[in-house]
Every structure is written in C-alpha cells, then in structure tokens.
C-alpha cells in the first residue's frame, strides 16, 4: 500500500525534506513497516521514532553486536543470515554453540527469531523486513527452551561480554498478577559484572521487555529484572498512541517503542521461523528488540558510551508525543514522565545526535541511606505515611549524591494479602512515584521481604530532603479478616552523581531541545544570564549563577556566609565555630564554643580546646568554679553534691557551703545546740528535752544530756533507775559528768560499784556490812560430811550460796557469817 517514491507534487511541504532523501528498500514487507514510516500521510502513528532520521545520518548499527536471549535464533533465515554472529550466540539449554531453535508442530520456539529480525534483518535483500539496525551483528542464546535456572540466566547474561554490546530479553517472571520474582544471586552477579567490566569497561547494555500482564492487573515493580537499575525497561504503545491492553505500568519503566495494540491496531512485522515472515509479532516482546536496535544506532554514533550514558541519552531524548496516559507529569528536573511510558517514545535520530557530541557522565555514586526499622502498623483502609530526611550521604564525598538517577526503595512488609497494598514514594521535589499498585489476584501472605522497588521518575532531581513513603491498604472483598499489616523496615538507595551530569557539555546548539545547564531545573522560558554561560558550583541551587565559584550563586543549595560587602558564599555545611540560623546563614559562635546553637556564651554544644563544658549550662570555662569538679574522663565540669562548695568527685566533698558542716564526705546543715538536722525535712529540729545535743529525734538519740539529766545506758534520765548508782566523773574541762551505772549483781540497790556497796538486797538475802548474804534458816541442821563440808566451803568462797540448789545443799555453811 505504501506509495514509494511519490512525485514531489504529491508530497506535502512538511515532508519535503523527507521526500528529497526518500529511502526505499526492496524488502517484501518494507512498506508495511508502519512504525518506520510514521511521518507520512498513510500511517496512523502521529509520533515518529525517527528511525529513518538516524539512518540518514549514516547510522545503521554497523560494528555493534546485539544478542537475543530467548528460545533460539534461526541463524540461516534469509533475512538474518548475513548479519548472524556466532560469537554472539550459544545454546545454553543443550550446552553447545548452535542456537538453532527446536522445531515442533506448534512452532513454539519462534519467539527469538521474531525478536532478532526487528533488530538486524538485512536491508534491501527482497526478504521480509528491514531491521532497525540492519547493519548490526545479531546473535541469539537459546536458553528458554528447557529448565531455566539461575545458572542458565547467568550464563546467558554473561555470554562473551567483551564482544556483545547489547543483550535483549523479552521474557520474565510470570505476569499473572501475583508473582514477585527476580534475578537470583548468579544472575545478579552477571548483571553487575556486565555493567562493571563488559564492553571493555563501558558496561554491557541490558534491554528488557516490561511486563505483559495488563489483563491480570499485574505491576512490573514485582519483576526484579525490569526493576533493576542495570536493565533498560521498555514499554509499548499502540499505533494510535493508546495504551495496549497487555501493558503494565510501573515507575521503573524508562522508555517506550511501538508495538501491537487492539485487534484493529497493526502489529509488528518481522522474521519468523522456517524462513518465513510474520505480521503478528505482539506485546512488549516486540518493543525490547526495537529499543535494542535504536540503542545500537546510538552506539555506532559513539562507541564510547557507557551503560549509564545510554540511559541518560534515553531520558533526554524520549518524548511524550501523542502517547496517551492520564499521569503525565513534569518532574523537578523538567522531564516529562509517566508510569505507562517512562520518559516517552524513543527518538532514534535525537539519540544519535546526542550520542555524537556526548561527554561521559560523572562516575556513579551510590548513597545507602539509613534504614528505618521502626515497626509501624498498616491499618486496613488507612494510609501509613513515613518520612525520611535524606542527606544524600553528604558526609562522604565518595558516595555523595546530589543529582539523582535511579532511586531504589527496599521494603519489608508483613501483610495477610499482598495484593491489597499500594505504595507511593514522593521525592523532596514533590514528584510522586507509584512503586506498587493494587494487584487483584495477589492473595499471597508472604508480604515483601527486603524487596527493591525502583523509580526513574526522579531523574535529575536533587537527592537530599524529605522523602515520603505512603502505604495504602485497600482490603479487597476477598479478604476475610482485615488484620493490619506491618511495615518492618524501609530504606532508600540513591543513585546519581555529586557533580551535575551535563556540566561539562556545551548545549547551545540544542538550546531549543535542552534546557541550559546553568538552569537545568527550570523551564526553557527562563531568562538567561548573558555574562556567564559556564557550569555553576555544586553548592548553587536551581536558580543558576553568575560565575563558577560558590560566591557566584544566585541562591545557595545548603548554607551561606554573608560578608560585610553584602556578598555571599555558599557552603555545604557551616564549619566549626559557626552555627546555622533559621535562614541557613552561618553565624559565629561565642569564642569559647567549638560548636553551638547560637552566638551567646551559654549556647555552646561543644567547647574549644582548653575549655571545659559545664554540665547543664551549655557554657564553656577554663576552670570549673565552686560547686563543680572536673571529670577528666568526660572533660567537662560536673556538679558536686548538694551543699558542697568544693569537691573532688561526685561523692567526695572537701568543703561545704556556709551554714553547712562536713559530715564524712557530705555536707549537712549546722544546727544549734539542742537541735539536730533532719535530712528529710532539711531543717534543724529540737532534740528531746533530756538531750543537750542529739543526733536525731527521741531520748535514745542524745549524745549529751541536758542540765539536770543523767546518762544511763545511752539515755538521759532525770534520776538513776532502780539498780543503778550515780557516778560522777570529773572531766578535763573542769566539768563533772554525771551518769548512772548498774549495781553489782548481788545487790538489789547500791551506792557504788562492787558487792560491798549494796544498800538493799534481793529477798532471801540479808544486808551485812554492805554485802548481801543468804538469809535462809536451815530446816534441818544436819551435820555435813567432811566432803560436803569441803565442797560447801568452796561454794561459800565462790559466792555461790545465792544459788538455791547449793544453798539448800550447804545450808549450814552458807548461813555462817564470813
């Protein structure tokens, strides 16, 4: 149907430039390749991927090697034979070098051959189609036609990485809307090895078809391959620009190419199994090879592009065009982005133009922000909001991220029905990414265990600031018990650069397409500063600058010094000796402070060398004053005990305050005689009236008796008790101490010490010459035997006659005087 080589009179003026250089190939289906001929009046697609524009610039993929990881490649297909590259091929399923597909009645292994044709089907050979990179070398890895294991994937992804430039994969975990799966350890290593050392250190390019589970309400964030920062996740749009029925949306999609749509939309034409040609290639499977081929054109324009350069160029050149999506937004870096299409439709010509003059972006920094491990409940029909203040690892120059590329959020959630969850992330600039949408068919109770969600929507934005994570629980009717879930942990991993990625490029030639890099984050309509056109200092914010230094910024990103001549200098942090006020200005601390919260001397946080911090006062001194002691371990002045004027430690007081007296190591209030210090009431209280001085309350606490009182058994009494006698002892000071002492045991009362000072006796005893004698009459004046007599003499001698038993035994002897 395509009217090739139209007469000039029939071509509209808008396309006159195309007509002058009209490309025509004799391949059978050339005219049916609607996604290449978008710009004419025949086809419906309104936005062009500008593939012919890239060809006209001379880029056809020459010397670029692409491999298709799939179910094999029909290497002898007439349209693939010329460009087939055995060094970019392998059969992992059978472990041999021939990737020919396995033929069967259903032709189930046609997928790889169809993908390969899109990339590098030969041009002008009358066969089938023209590949987008029709001079690239094409290979295939047969790896899906058998047990796919982690090892199989890793072998495929790491095949000949110094030879192969681009790996294209149009497969992934099940798109059933309930699977959460991704690359295992070997495949992840293969990715990391590839980007680190593939293509002689420039990094392998991994292109991945986004999920095809639109009808299953799947979400491509649950696919760890498309979610990876190392893969370029490709979405699809139909010829009409409408969203295809199979399309999944997620924040990890980077860009889009054309593919099939509804039944009335045209599909993709490409090489098919058994040397055929098909017009029925569909799905995101068709988009990934297209994207791989467009990238091949860019790599031909600049073979030195790294894996990150390629992603940057895609972000810069992809366009929303007429792609229909309800959520197109412009992020703070000025890029249009949506969850369906990423940054929009790929533009091959723009990419090669960009690639021609591209300078490598600065090295990637990876900032792993601290994890938030506080358990939070996710209540049904509510939203849980958690805010994290990211610094972008500003304290580490090797991982400091200012300008974002990818953002990864690692989340661990326990929940009874995973599909009821949806998760959003809002950047400090206000760009909201939907990390996860509800998945109707996902009834799993496994939650997410440290799953990594990725968004590209913050590309080019600033990293530091408040990041807001929102988790919604929208219970489905299929959920019987509405138990709350639990957010256990989440953390941010920020990828990007500390230097503006385009600061070394001069973009005046593309001023209309690209914003000036001095005001990268502003719309193009902003006024330009004519005097200075170079890069701004990293401490300048998005308002641009008038020169390269930090003193030339129009506004500062973090903090600033203001000088007497009213100029400013931007800094990342206020240095020691300065504090930052509410307006982010650095002001001087007091001269005694190392760091502070204000300029007064009582607003120190830490002290300068030679000064000591005073506890609870935020002040710094040279010597700790009264009431404080120097804690040499903490290098600070700490308080002495209460009432202590000077001390050597927290428990040893050496001098008390006036009115206090040192009691051991502690100070207590000095009380007047007749009073004592009550520690509970902290007052002096009167002693008992019997006490002249005392240590406490009660008559037992007397330490000295009052006038007219006598000390008896540590008590002060007015007169000696029964069984005691008054003792008066002269003291050194001339006074006489009067006390009551206990009488001898033999006395009932006495006048003095010993057994000869009794004044009265116990019953049964007679007082005789001051001694108490037994007074009982022997009932029986029996003669004691000689032995008894001797024994009784001993009893009497030893004063044992008081004992009743012995008294009776030796009655006569005991009765005698003497």
């Amino acid at each position, binding site marked *: 149907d395509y009217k090739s080589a139209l007469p000039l009179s029939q071509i509209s003026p808008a396309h006159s430039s195309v007509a002058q250089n009209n490309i025509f190939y004799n391949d059978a289906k050339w005219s049916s390749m609607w996604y290449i001929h978008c710009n004419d009046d025949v086809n419906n697609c309104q936005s062009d991927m500008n593939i012919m524009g890239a060809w006209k610039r001379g880029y056809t993929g020459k010397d670029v090697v692409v491999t298709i990881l799939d179910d094999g490649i029909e290497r002898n297909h007439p349209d693939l034979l010329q460009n087939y590259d055995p060094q970019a091929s392998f059969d992992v399923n059978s472990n041999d070098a021939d990737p020919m597909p396995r033929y069967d009645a259903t032709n189930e292994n046609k997928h790889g051959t169809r993908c390969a044709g899109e990339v590098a089907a030969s041009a002008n050979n009358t066969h089938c189609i023209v590949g987008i990179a029709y001079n690239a070398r094409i290979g295939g890895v047969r790896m899906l036609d058998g047990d796919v294991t982690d090892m199989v994937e*890793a072998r495929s992804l790491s095949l000949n990485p110094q030879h192969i430039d681009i790996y294209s994969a149009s497969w992934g975990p099940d798109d059933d809307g309930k699977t959460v799966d991704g690359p295992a350890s070997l495949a992840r290593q293969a990715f990391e090895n590839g980007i680190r050392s593939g293509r002689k250190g420039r990094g392998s390019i991994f292109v991945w078809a986004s999920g095809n589970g639109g009808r299953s309400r799947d979400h491509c964030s649950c696919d760890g391959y498309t979610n990876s920062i190392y893969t370029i996740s490709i979405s699809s749009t139909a010829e009409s620009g409408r969203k295809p029925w199979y399309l999944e949306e997620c924040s990890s999609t980077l860009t889009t190419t054309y593919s099939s749509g509804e039944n009335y939309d045209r599909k993709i034409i490409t090489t098919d199994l058994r040397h055929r040609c098909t017009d029925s290639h569909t799905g995101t499977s068709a988009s990934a090879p297209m994207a791989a081929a467009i990238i091949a054109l860019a790599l031909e324009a600049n073979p030195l592009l790294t894996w990150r350069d390629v992603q940057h160029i895609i972000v810069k050149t992809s366009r929303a065009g007429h792609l229909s999506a309800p959520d197109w937004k412009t992020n703070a870096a000025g890029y249009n982005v949506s969850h369906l299409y990423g940054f929009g439709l790929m533009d091959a010509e723009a990419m090669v133009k960009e690639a021609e003059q591209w300078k490598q972006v600065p090295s990637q920094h990876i900032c792993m922000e601290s994890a938030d491990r506080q358990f939070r409940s996710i209540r049904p029909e509510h939203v849980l909001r958690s805010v994290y203040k990211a610094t972008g690892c500003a304290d580490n120059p090797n991982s400091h991220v200012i300008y974002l590329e990818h953002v990864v959020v690692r989340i661990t959630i326990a929940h009874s029905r995973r599909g009821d969850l949806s998760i959003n992330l809002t950047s400090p600039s206000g760009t909201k990414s939907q990390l996860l949408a509800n998945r109707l068919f996902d009834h799993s109770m496994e939650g997410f265990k440290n799953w990594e969600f990725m968004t590209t929507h913050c590309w080019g934005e600033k990293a530091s600031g408040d990041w807001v994570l929102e988790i919604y629980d929208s219970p489905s009717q299929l959920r019987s018990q509405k138990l709350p879930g639990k957010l256990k942990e989440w953390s941010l991993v920020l990828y990007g650069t500390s230097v503006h990625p385009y600061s070394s490029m001069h973009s005046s030639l593309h001023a209309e397409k690209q914003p000036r890099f001095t005001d990268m984050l502003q719309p193009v309509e902003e006024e330009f500063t004519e005097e200075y056109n170079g890069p701004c200092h990293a401490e300048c914010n998005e308002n641009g600058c008038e020169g390269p230094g930090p003193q030339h910024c129009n506004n500062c990103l973090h903090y600033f010094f203001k000088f007497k001549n009213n100029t400013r200098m931007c800094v990342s942090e206020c240095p020691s000796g300065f504090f930052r006020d509410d307006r982010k200005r650095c002001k001087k601390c007091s001269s005694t402070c190392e760091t502070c919260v204000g300029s007064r001397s009582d607003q120190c946080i830490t002290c300068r060398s030679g000064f000591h911090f005073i506890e609870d006062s935020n002040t710094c001194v040279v010597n700790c004053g009264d009431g404080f002691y120097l804690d040499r371990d903490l290098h600070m002045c700490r308080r002495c005990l209460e009432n202590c004027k000077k001390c050597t430690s927290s428990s040893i007081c050496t001098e008390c305050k006036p009115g206090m007296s040192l009691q051991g190591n502690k100070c207590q209030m000095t009380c007047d005689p007749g009073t004592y210090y009550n520690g509970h009431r902290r007052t002096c209280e009167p002693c008992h009236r019997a006490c002249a001085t005392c240590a406490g309350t009660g008559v037992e606490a007397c330490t000295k008796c009052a006038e007219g009182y006598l000390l008896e058994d540590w008590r002060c009494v007015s007169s000696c008790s029964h069984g005691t006698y008054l003792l008066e002892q002269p003291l050194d000071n001339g006074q006489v101490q009067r006390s009551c002492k206990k009488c001898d045991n033999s006395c009932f009362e006495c006048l003095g010490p010993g057994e000869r000072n009794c004044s009265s006796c116990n019953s049964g005893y007679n007082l005789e010459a001051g001694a108490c004698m037994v007074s009982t009459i022997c009932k029986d004046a029996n003669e004691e035997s000689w032995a008894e007599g001797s024994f009784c003499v001993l009893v009497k001698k030893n004063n044992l006659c008081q004992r009743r038993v012995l008294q009776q035994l030796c009655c006569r002897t005991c009765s005698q005087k003497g």
Partner: protein
Amino acid sequence: PPCKARIYTNHWAVRIPGGPEVAEHIAQKYGYRNMGQIGDLRDHYHFYHSRTIKRSTLSSRGRHSFISMEPKVEWIEQQVVKRRIKR
C-alpha cells in the same frame, strides 16, 4: 495452576577459587561432572550430578552433599527451575 513447589534439578552452581583444576578435582572427588565456568563469572562453575534426581521437589541429599563441607568450596547452590514466560 502452575506448580508452586520448588523444583530442584541435578545441577549445582559452585564457587571455588583457585582455578579450573581445583574445581575439576573437587567435582571428581564428590562424583560431579564439571561442566565448566558459568559464563563470565570468575570462580563459578557448573557441576552436574548424573546420579541424582533430575527434577525433584526435594533438595538432593546423599554422599554428594558433602561437597558443601569441602573447605575449598566457598558457596554452592542446587539449581531450582524458575518459571519464565515469553512476553
């Protein structure tokens, strides 16, 4: 619906530093066949054991399992079939 149980194969991925000779020696010691390095992953080898069940819902146990205790084997993992679909 597709089977959700893990399906173990009779292929293992191992990490053995020291070069292919060391890997070959260890493979022979425990009855495996060394299928070579896994792609471009240095020190990673593909071991195959013909006398274990080709596909099983249980991870394989036997004399060959002692390879995991071999000091020179830094890491070993029995390969599990993954469900992958063409898009």
